[in-house]
């Protein structure tokens, strides 16, 4: 992929919520293409509301959200999809599409109302499957795949969208341990392809693994915005999750030192 100029997805002093009532106040958030930002927080803290706002489904109650200097809430769904792609939590579909077709649906934003994907779209879709090491599953039915494989395919679909930002909703949560690590590795690889990533996670270890910035959503505010190594202290983790957690430096694995969590179980 060609190195493109960096662009920014940004929220300034935004209130997020429905029907004119903000449930998260004064959000300042900035993601640059190539960045990874991990979003931590309890269920019900407003994570979904934040995602819905970033995807342009709802407008901020006050404040602004912009992408590449443009007001995101003025863009059409097609234009938003050109900038931001979305990876929902893994799920089953009502109809059993082929993996190849599912990835091809990522090309929607690049096609007209009455048109269907052509050869170029098909080759982009295959390329994206290859990037995620899923090309051998192209002819399989999506619903027959394992949870980890499905997650990779949906990430491939988001990649085929060729948007500069990707929002992932707990991409590793419902996966077994090996697949969690695989998904995290791929996410780091995507960031190196200069895609800006916002991912929600329930595991502070995931934030350490992607060596990213973190932001914590709690009590109607977005706080603790900074690098995971500095932000995720035992005190912060206690305040988010309400349990005691120890944080250590893991031994150098050849790629530098990172931190790991060890909850106190008593």
């Amino acid at each position: 992929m060609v190195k493109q100029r960096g662009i920014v997805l940004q929220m300034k002093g935004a209130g997020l919520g429905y029907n004119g009532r903000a449930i998260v106040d004064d959000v300042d958030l900035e993601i640059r293409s190539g960045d990874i930002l991990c979003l931590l927080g309890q269920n019900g803290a407003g994570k979904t509301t934040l995602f819905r706002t970033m995807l342009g489904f709802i407008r901020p109650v006050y404040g602004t959200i912009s992408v590449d200097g443009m007001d995101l809430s003025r863009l059409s769904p097609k234009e938003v999809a050109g900038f931001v792609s979305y990876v929902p939590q893994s799920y089953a579909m009502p109809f059993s599409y082929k993996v190849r077709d599912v990835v091809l649906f990522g090309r929607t934003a690049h096609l007209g109302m009455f048109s269907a994907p052509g050869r170029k779209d098909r080759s982009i879709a295959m390329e994206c499957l290859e990037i995620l090491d899923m090309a051998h599953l192209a002819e399989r039915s999506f619903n027959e795949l394992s949870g980890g494989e499905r997650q990779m395919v949906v990430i491939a679909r988001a990649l085929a969208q060729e948007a500069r930002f990707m929002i992932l909703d707990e991409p590793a949560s419902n996966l077994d341990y090996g697949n969690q690590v695989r998904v995290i590795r791929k996410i780091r690889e995507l960031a190196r392809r200069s895609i800006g990533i916002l991912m929600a996670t329930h595991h502070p270890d995931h934030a350490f693994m992607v060596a990213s910035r973190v932001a914590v959503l709690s009590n109607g505010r977005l706080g603790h915005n900074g690098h995971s190594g500095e932000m995720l202290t035992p005190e912060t983790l206690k305040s988010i999750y309400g349990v005691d957690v120890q944080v250590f430096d893991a031994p150098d694995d050849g790629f530098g030192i990172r931190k790991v969590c060890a909850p106190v179980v008593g």
Partner: protein
Amino acid sequence: MKGVSLILLCVCVLAGICILSLGIGRYPVSPGTIVSWLITGGSADDNVPLVMLGIRLPRLIAAIAAGGALAISGAAYQGLFRNPMVSPDILGVSSGAGFGAALAILLSMPVGVVQIMSFTGGISAVLVAVAVSRAIGRGSDSVLVLVLSGIVVSSLFGALLSMLKYVADPLDKLPAITYWLMGSLADIRMRELTTVIIMITAGAVPLMLVSWRLNVLSFGDEEARSLGLHTGMMRAVVIVCATMVTASVISVCGIIGWVGLVVPHISRFLAGPNHRMLLPVSFLIGAAFMLAVDTVARSAVSVEIPIGIITAVAGAPFFIWVMKKSSIRSW
């Protein structure tokens, strides 16, 4: 390509049923005679052109148009509502059309007016359902609200229809209403057929054109929108087209159930879930199915059997079989 050969196969099957169907009836004609008449335009038997042009061909075209139209709108609705158990009358088009037709019959209107009122009734019921869901469904799962509104409107028009049947003259009007509700292709004339075919084309062609995007819509509103689909507009296009197609079929044929539910299933079984292939295959299989059923309806016994009865009797066991099959292999 696999897809193209499947469509060709369906076309051949349909053509075969056409030739058989043209030959079957009170005045039997051999398939060879029909083929030579179709190619040369002449026949040794002077009655053949008369029977074909005057009676069997219009009815054949009507069966193909009606079956294909109901099946394609059923397939489109199943994609739109992300539910393989949905039929084209989920938003109340059948009960609205039934009410309109029954009212016209009760008021002793001519056939043309019955058709117009049935069409208007069908469209109105769907409009009411959409309006209700828009009024109450702010911010919630709009597909679910839409389906529920459809069910409410359906049962409302169903109740109104029952009232009309209750007050109808049991010797004259009530049988007419009942006969109309069971559906028949017997009364179709060439003139109204032209209008219906124009309406069906006007609805089916846009559905075919948006068929690939229908796949994207079947992921659900938010996901489809995140992929860049203008979901509101897309849903409006599908509802308008499918409703127009269904209402125009119902207005001339009466209520024919099952085709719009069962045929998309068979088609999905054969062609896979991609709507780009599913819609044309549904149209062809729906046409073939309806033509076969109508041939039975007009020739099995000396009186005409209402077609809605045959589709249900043939459709119910078949549907059970498909459900058994598809519980082994997912859709």
